[in-house]
């Protein structure tokens, strides 16, 4: 299995590859694009700012350096859909990128764009973004017919589901899973908001919930008083408190803190590495193009350590113990709130 790391600067390439990243992915936000479209029409899922590379010359240098170090580079064009008015510009952008450098593939979610790229730039390698929400084997088939090379599975597909999808979807396709950093409360591919308007809609606002019965009446916090659900002891308010705890631990990465060994907290699939190996997963994605460089480095280092341990042939339970020890936050791990496999 390969380690896929986020990169947003040429200066990050050397260290990330030396620490064990086999593949890199990045985004581009061109000044000309921003001038033309403003700050809320994004070329990829991450907006202008530190997540992206600013021009194609830098991208070209970055790709050369990565190739020199034996790593591939994939470029994100992963908005869930691009409107008609942008289609020509996006195609020209891809053609310009390909004239400037040998990017190894494009990460795309919009099936219409995939179809266009495969038609106009036939040898373009396409990885289907998690934003396309490939959740089942028929969906793998749908994208296979479009000629894609890799499926990036969305978060929170458990091992059994992945096993079934791959069994039917076929082992000739490459598959990628999320391995570290950043969760989403909802299914990212079916989320109709833009982070341009205040970040994640699901957890950035301070949501308060009022429980309303179907008949329109406000209900108290105790579900048993409201309706006879057997065995439910937890009040609704307690449940919301626990939800907010999960948001903090799993989705908001414990406020961006690190564990005692300096490794990042938040969503993680390290305990599932033995199963991913057995399933023939091609690549392990570390999230966070916009993350601080140190976090990217520590993330690659962490995944590499556990992956090496897997390769030594340790049984799955030993791998899980090792991963928890290395991550250094056993208590948090035991809650399960940081697991992608959910």
């Amino acid at each position, binding site marked *: 299995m390969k380690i896929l790391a986020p990169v947003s600067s040429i200066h990050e390439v050397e260290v990330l590859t030396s620490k064990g990243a086999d593949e890199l992915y990045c985004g581009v936000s061109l000044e000309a694009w921003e001038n033309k479209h403003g700050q809320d029409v994004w070329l990829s899922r991450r907006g202008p700012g530190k997540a992206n590379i600013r021009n194609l010359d830098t991208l070209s240098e970055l790709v050369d350096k990565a190739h020199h170090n034996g790593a591939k580079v994939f470029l994100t064009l992963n908005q869930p859909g691009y409107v008609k008015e942008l289609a020509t510009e996006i195609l020209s952008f891809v053609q310009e990128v390909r004239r400037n450098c040998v990017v190894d593939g494009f990460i795309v979610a919009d099936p219409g764009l995939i*179809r266009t790229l495969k038609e106009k730039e036939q040898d373009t390698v396409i990885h289907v973004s998690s934003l396309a929400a490939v959740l089942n*084997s*028929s969906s793998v*088939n*749908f994208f296979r017919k479009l000629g894609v090379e890799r499926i990036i599975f969305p978060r929170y597909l458990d091992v059994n*589901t992945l096993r079934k999808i791959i069994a039917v979807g076929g082992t000739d396709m490459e598959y990628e899973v999320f391995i570290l950093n950043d969760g989403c409360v909802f299914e990212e591919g079916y*989320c*109709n908001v833009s982070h341009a308007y205040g970040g994640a809609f699901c957890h950035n606002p301070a949501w308060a919930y009022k429980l309303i019965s179907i008949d329109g009446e406000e209900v108290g916090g105790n579900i048993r008083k409201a309706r006879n659900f057997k065995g439910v*002891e937890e009040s609704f308010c307690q449940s919301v408190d626990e939800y907010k705890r999960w948001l903090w631990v799993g989705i908001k990465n414990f406020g961006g803190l690190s564990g005692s060994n300096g490794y990042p907290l938040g969503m993680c699939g390290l305990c599932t590495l033995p199963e991913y190996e057995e399933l023939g997963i091609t690549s392990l994605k570390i999230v966070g193009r916009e993350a601080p460089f140190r976090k990217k480095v520590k993330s690659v280092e962490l995944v590499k350590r556990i992956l090496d341990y897997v390769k030594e042939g340790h049984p799955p339970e030993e791998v899980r113990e090792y991963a928890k020890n290395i991550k250094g936050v056993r208590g948090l791990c035991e809650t399960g709130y940081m697991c992608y496999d959910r």
Partner: protein
Amino acid sequence: MEWALAIPRLQTSTRLKDLWFGPKGSLLNDLKKDFEDRFGFIRFTRLYYGQEFCEKAISGKEDMKKALYLSEEEGMNFTCVTPYVTEKGLTKVKVLLSQLAKERPESEVVINDWGVLDWIIDEQLTFTPILGRLLNKVLRDPRIPKNLMNSSNSEKTHYFQTSCLAGLGMKNLLDQYSVKRIELDHPPQGLDPELLDWGYQTSLYLPFGVVTTGRLCLIQSWGVEVKDKFRSSSRCDQKCLPYWLEMTDLSGRVRKNADWELMQKGNTIFYRLSRESVAKAIDSADSTGVNRIVFQPEPL
């Protein structure tokens, strides 16, 4: 204009006619009055039946048979609605649609997952595929700046009103899959005045629009052990059926708005349009060539 009545499950359908008669003073009741003032007697000629959002709540074969019977009894055409699905949900959808193919092969099927669309075509089923509103990526963000809302002259507003479905690449792809109709919400920024140019027949859902949906569910996790909370694989006892969650942002980032209310039901956040907004949406549907209203008293 064709009028369709959408019900996600059968419980509601036992009082199909009552759905059109909410309590006095309720939004439902007000909408009925407004619609009838404008259009006269509303006759629903199509039943939308099924789950758009949650694979755990996909109907069984027997319930679907009852829904089919009900639509027949009421003289309504039948549209089966399907959600996005993991492998488990895909199996359920296959069972359901295989049954539907035997009972009513000329039915419409609303599809919210590319895999389901692909399977229907692969199996050469004779349904009419409809592209569901979850595969239509028009932004539906309640935080969208005011200057982008309903100013039909602005190029930027138009950008946010249109969709990838209008592009040639997607149009060709959907032609290949025989998709002629697409489903829409009425987004905060309004419908695209050039909707007809997209090249599809269009349906507009009222009064709920979808902000976001997912497989981890707040209300499903209520009362379950910590180890089973916020897990897509956990069992669900459908606590979402009797409850809504009214949402307020204490940080003030998402301001209260007279045009809609934010609500969560089960795994999905919706905006429910106000009476006045529904009226505007109908105006807009009229002027943009929408030829079907999907009235959905409860979305999930």
